[in-house]
């Protein structure tokens, strides 16, 4: 049976499994019967504490889902310390996901952006597309989803402790020089995604990016996650190059919780 929002506000689900991914990141598995698509997100309620947007990091046909959480604040810390059997609230899935177009695809992920990108990588691979996943991390210990069956993975680290020593965008450029790609998909720090947009448009390769903004309602009404007249929660989180090239705040500015403009 499909979960319905009913008059509940949020669906309460039980955490079935907690999987540690890195020293500060875990995946929480639960069951939520819905029609989640690659690149969509949930609003995850930590009862009595907070509610945060989380990319869906696994979508199984039997309703099994996961979110992958990096411990960066009070709410994410609470999620990272949860155990199987504990309850969370789920609203969603929300937003527009990845288009999954392209035949030779370069996916470029940085940091916790990998939680969203990994589902796209798996889906491209599942339908037989030529996928290269390029992952940037601070150190070897921070590397998220570095080993994926059936997917070519290239790694860069800031300190050189694994793979290419340097920026993931430089690694991506090197791969683009070596091979032909017809699609670039990215999720991670916005400055990195902006750099990839510049690279993609200079090379005339189609591009899309999954954005992150502070979210409140999650359903396109409150305007907290506004960017250039669009809402990341509803118009996004995945936006195509055609839209992002026209938004001058992409890679430059965001809004704080009060709606003030702040530099990235």
């Amino acid at each position: 049976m499909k979960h319905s929002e009913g008059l509940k506000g949020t669906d309460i689900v039980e955490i079935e499994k907690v999987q540690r991914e890195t020293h500060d990141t875990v995946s929480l598995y639960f069951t939520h019967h819905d029609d989640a698509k690659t690149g969509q997100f949930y609003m995850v309620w930590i009862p009595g504490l907070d509610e945060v947007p989380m990319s869906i990091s696994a979508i199984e046909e039997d309703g099994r889902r996961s979110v992958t959480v990096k411990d960066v604040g009070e709410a994410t810390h609470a999620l990272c310390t949860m155990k199987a059997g504990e309850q969370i609230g789920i609203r969603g899935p929300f937003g527009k996901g990845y288009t999954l177009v392209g035949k030779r695809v370069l996916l470029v992920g940085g940091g916790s952006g990998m939680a969203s990108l990994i589902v796209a990588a798996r889906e491209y691979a599942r339908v037989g597309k030529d996928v290269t996943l390029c992952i940037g991390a601070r150190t070897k210990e921070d590397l998220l989803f570095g080993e994926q069956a059936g997917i070519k993975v290239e790694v860069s680290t800031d300190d050189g402790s694994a793979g290419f020593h340097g920026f993931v965008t430089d690694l991506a450029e090197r791969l683009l020089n070596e091979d032909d790609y017809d699609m670039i998909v990215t999720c991670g720090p916005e400055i990195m995604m902006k750099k990839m947009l510049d690279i993609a448009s200079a090379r005339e390769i189609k591009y899309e990016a999954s954005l992150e903004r502070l979210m409140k309602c999650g359903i396109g009404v409150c305007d907290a996650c506004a960017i250039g007249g669009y809402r990341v929660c509803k118009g996004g989180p995945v936006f195509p190059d055609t839209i992002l090239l026209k938004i001058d705040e992409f890679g430059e500015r965001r809004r704080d919780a009060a709606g003030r403009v702040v530099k990235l």
Partner: protein
Amino acid sequence: MSDLSVNIVGPRMKNPLMLASGILDETGESMLMAVKKGAGAVVTKSVGLEANEGHRNPTAFEIGDGLGLLNAMGLPNPGINDYEREVKIALTGGVPVIGSVFGRDGKDFSYLAGKMEDYGASAVELNLSCPHAKGVGMDIGADPEEVGIIVSAVSSAVSIPVFAKLTPNVPNIADIALSAVKAGAEGVVAINTLKGMIISPETGLPVLGNRLGGLSGPAILPVGVRSVFEIKQRFMKEEVNAVIIGVGGISSAHDALQYIMAGADALQIGSVMRWKGAAVFGEIASGISDFMDREGYSTIKDMVGIAQEAKK
């Protein structure tokens, strides 16, 4: 051919549909989007003296299948000094911008309204009705006397029209409406959200971060229509000539016409954009126009308050 234009906020509006305060109007770019989709005017997010982050999440969610929204945003806003940018961007759309403001007393409201006037707003809307913020909104707007004092202060501080947005969470909304217009308001806006709460039985906790919130959307339409009807009735009885702007649960031309016939001169559209997006402005405007052509009405004014004359 029907004429949808109305003249209530200074510059003439091409249609009676305004973007309601609180929905998709924190940023100038989002207000512009509503203008592009056909809004006749836009009302800003309610802005206060200082930057305010609002309540903790969950702050809003849908209830039922398109029944309504329950929210407790907690009046997030960047503060009046940082808001000039947003008003200026919204003004490039070429339709009237109405500045919504909230404060604790006449002094706060007057200062904020003056700033909105400086920024180029055609009118101000006083938020005397938010049901989920302490010491502001309906905490002060449920008392007719207090409303009169605030409206009077603002009316003498600015030269643009002043509208008081009212709460339905009172025994008699018409008393407050009358008090506002007698104190100098050009008109009233009715209604703000209804106080509400949702509890998650599995956890035993209210879901909203603020626990208490405000209900909006289709579920509250009859409450809004009744409120506007009561206000119009009182204005007619007291021979008061003031504007009524109807808001609450409008999602179609049929809903909009109910408000107009109850006594509304103009309308605001908000929560329905959750389901229909900003394109709903064009849809409702053409629906009203078709109805008028079909039924032989030539102006909006011809329909305002006609339900008042119906025999009981």
